């Protein structure tokens, strides 16, 4: 057993976990945040995707001990006081879900792309979501949602820069 100190969705967290536990287990069974899904539990499906220091990782393939001192964001931390994150809002608007199981991981992977490359093409969106399997939607609406999120992110950047509308 070891005590881990890290930031979880912006708050300080202190959690005791055995050495062989993964970040996913800590998030779900210690912190009680069940948004991140335990799909395949070995890297195949992406449903467990969370951010560590701002980058998407598969929490089922991350040992909990490795997040000591780092910043973890799960789907529960994506929205803020202003409401839903743009990615969540666009997934909602596009109807990009059916059963919803893939969605938390899908949105965390999409969030990284929207932040890093709001100019992303459809091909780049597919590549960015390659790890994230969806068994229901056939992906089209998911890609549309991410395209819309990218568009709004660009708009937001232009407005902030005071550029042309």
């Amino acid at each position: 057993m070891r005590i881990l100190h890290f930031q979880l969705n912006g708050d300080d967290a202190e959690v005791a976990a055995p050495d062989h536990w993964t970040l996913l287990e800590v998030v779900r069974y210690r912190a009680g945040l069940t948004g991140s899904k335990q799909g395949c539990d070995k890297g195949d499906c992406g449903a467990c995707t969370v951010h560590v220091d701002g980058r998407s990782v598969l929490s089922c393939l991350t040992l909990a001990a490795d997040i000591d001192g780092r910043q973890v964001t799960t789907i529960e931390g994506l929205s803020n006081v202003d409401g839903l994150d743009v990615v969540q809002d666009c997934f909602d608007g596009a109807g990009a879900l059916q059963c919803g199981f893939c969605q938390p991981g899908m949105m965390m992977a999409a969030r990284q792309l929207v932040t890093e490359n709001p100019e992303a093409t459809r091909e780049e969106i597919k590549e960015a979501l390659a790890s994230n399997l969806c068994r229901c939607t056939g992906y089209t609406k998911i890609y549309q949602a991410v395209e819309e999120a990218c568009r709004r992110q660009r708009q937001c950047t232009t407005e902030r820069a005071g550029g042309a509308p």
Partner: protein
Amino acid sequence: MNTFDLQKPTSIEGAAALLPTSSDSRQAVLLAGGQDLLGELKDGLVEPERVVNLKGVAGLDAMNWEADGSLTLGALVTLQSLAEEPRVLEEMAVLAEAAQQVGSPQIRSVGTVGGNLNQRPRCWYYRNADSVCLKKGGTHCFAQLGENKYNAILGGGPTYIVHPSDLAPALVALGASAVLVSPRGRRTVLLSEYYLLPADDGITRETIREPDEVLASVHVPVQRQGMRSTYIKFRERGSYDWALSSVALCLWMSDGMTTGARLVLGGVAPTPWRCESSELLLVGHAVDEQTIRRVVDEALRQAEPLSDNAYKVPLTKGLVTRALQTLAS
């Protein structure tokens, strides 16, 4: 996952000292990014008492361009940082393209160079927790007579895994070497000599690495002026996957003639598969249709497909053709 004790030494020597001296992986295994190891631990393919976490070693994630233009990659350099490094993109396209095509963004953010080169095979008989195949100390390679669509067409027997690493063919094509550190000291080996065929004592392991050796860094020498290079990977599906077949090619040309070539295949053999006799057929010739045909035929001349993987022969010939045409045009 079974329980284990996680240790985080702060030096490579300290890590090596915690590793087993015999091939008994029940004592201890190395952890880098964990993108392969955690799968193995969860499936019980390794059941160590101790996991030795390399991430406590400061500076092991450094990428250094030396004064002579060569490149040193610490074992913990991530695939993402390698794929994005401007000078790698410009001077060693084959390596950047190989790194870009590993897995998915999540895997590349965390997966490391050392872990990529030392990852274990994906053969489903090996990965299946319930099967005790030859690779796991059993008596038979089940792939030989079983479902072998993804297995080796070159260099197989008595086991038929393919080496799954995308970086390995690219680094072999670049003539890279690895530094291995153990309690006995350090040694440098060419990556082309790092991987073992099953027939050369490579049945339960894939490399010459001793159980108490840590791969500390990889060194990529300066390339002769004018190199063009590429890595072409063919996957069964559009999303992430290991290679069904891949080609790493470095080519030097002058006045329309090839003056040098290195051709290495991935996904088709238990090791990165260097095609030296094909390279010789290129030198002194233009990359025309006739030369390409001779080169691809020679590269696959020794292929001995199993029952379900003969498709890899024309597939690989097509990939080599595409790589040659891309670089020569």
